[in-house]
């Protein structure tokens, strides 16, 4: 089996979970990776301080799309405040593959977008 493009990574890339748009939504953010031009946006529905539904939308490589898809399954039900505190390791561990420095931003784009939507902070997660 391929060390990077594992079956579950390719499955999430080809059949991304929670992709699309949500209208109405409570929070949103849109961002891109300046290195490759990939774009990702998110719509969130929030009730009582918790994420109750979300949809990512945009285009990107297998790593960035799979990261968004895998993360989306964990993010539903999480406190908005907790989402804002998530660090880079959280999403990299979820991905379960070794991420080289050149692919790090691919892996982190979805978390960056979630952080933006929940805190307004547009910096890259560390």
């Amino acid at each position: 089996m391929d060390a990077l493009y594992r079956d579950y990574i390719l499955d999430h890339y080809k059949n991304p979970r929670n992709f699309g748009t949500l209208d109405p939504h409570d929070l949103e953010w849109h961002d891109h990776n300046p290195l490759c031009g990939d774009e990702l946006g998110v719509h969130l529905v929030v009730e009582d301080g918790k994420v109750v539904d979300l949809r990512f939308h945009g285009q990107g490589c297998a790593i960035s799309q799979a990261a968004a898809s895998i993360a989306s399954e964990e993010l539903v039900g999480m406190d908005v405040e907790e989402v804002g505190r998530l660090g880079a390791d959280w999403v990299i561990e979820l991905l379960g593959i070794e991420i080289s420095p050149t692919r790090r931003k691919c892996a982190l784009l979805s978390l960056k977008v979630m952080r933006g939507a929940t805190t307004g902070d547009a910096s890259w997660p560390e």
Partner: protein
Amino acid sequence: MGVVAHRSLVDARADFPVLGREINGHSLVYLDSAATSQKPRQVIEAMESFYSTSYGTVHRGVYELGREATDAFEGARERIASFVNWDTDCSIYVRNATEAINLVAYAWGREHVSAGDEVLITEMEHHSNIVPWQLLCEETGARLRYLSVSGEGELSLDELDSVLAEGRVRLVAVTHVSNVLGTVNPVQEIVRRARAAGAVSLVDGAQAVPQMPVDLRAIDADFYAWTGHKALGPTVGMLHGRRELLKEMRPFLGGGHMISRVEREHSTWNELPWKFEAGTSAVAEAVGLGAAVDYLSAIGMEQVRAHERDLTTYALERLPELDGLTLYGPPNVDSRGGVVAFAIEGIHPHDIAEICDREAVCVRAGHHCAQPLMRLLGVGATARASFHVYNTRDDVDRLVHALSGAREVFGL
């Protein structure tokens, strides 16, 4: 520094030390020369020898080293200017093509472009030939306009004529060869029409000078910018300009070497080309670029062009063997240079490049600093293979092999 006898391109591969490298157990296949080219030992040795024997300050040293360094620096300028058939004193060393274009936008643009004027560029420009004009237009209130690119990746001279006929265009800035589509634009004709309409012209030759014969007197642009690092040389750029314009232009950067005399309140400027070369230049890099144009001249630019044309033809023939592959740019190799951008359905370009790298095949993935063009093509990114003298048809075969491996990884 003498001109070497005519060399065949088969021998050329042996001149590039980096091609001896193995990566992941595979011999290197370098297909990213449109981003930056590899260097022959003749260039590396020229710089090493200059640093080892003749390095010193240029135009100031009274001592032997200063004289030798000045001769090497100015001698290189002379050979570089003659390589593209332009006057030596109107050939300015800059950092890269980007700086050359910024120099014109700053020193010419700010004096001659004002509110109500238009700057005309095209949808196939690199960011380096977009952003300096955006900044100029924001500052002056001028309008930035784009000539459209057809489905086959070409510009329309009729559209150029109709925009020029409106009478507001002050400057036309266009790329000679597209870094994504490979399109070779009819720059001579574009320059002629711009001049007839009273507009100044700038041609971005970053992708042209490295791979085809370029005769600046024939093109006759007011400004022509290119860079050495894509032309087998080090990172130093060139701006060639029309003497009348360069003479009346204000300087770009102020400082040492660009002055004639400095008073407490004002200064007067050095002669051309030094008026535009503030501070200490990249001297060894200039010497290296001199060696690079000697090297290219020894091969012959007609032969370099024929070689790139052959590889492009072969790539355009072989790549479509892969299912789901889309090619961008003109289908006719006569109107395109040695660059092939492509996409494979179901695999993002970033993943294509990652998997190619496992077999030591270096291709570029991304927006190629041409985001407006990417939007026009309806993609965020493409993969791109580009060639130079050291590439062979085997390299194209290795690329096709790696791409078919990528399709397997993705279960396609």
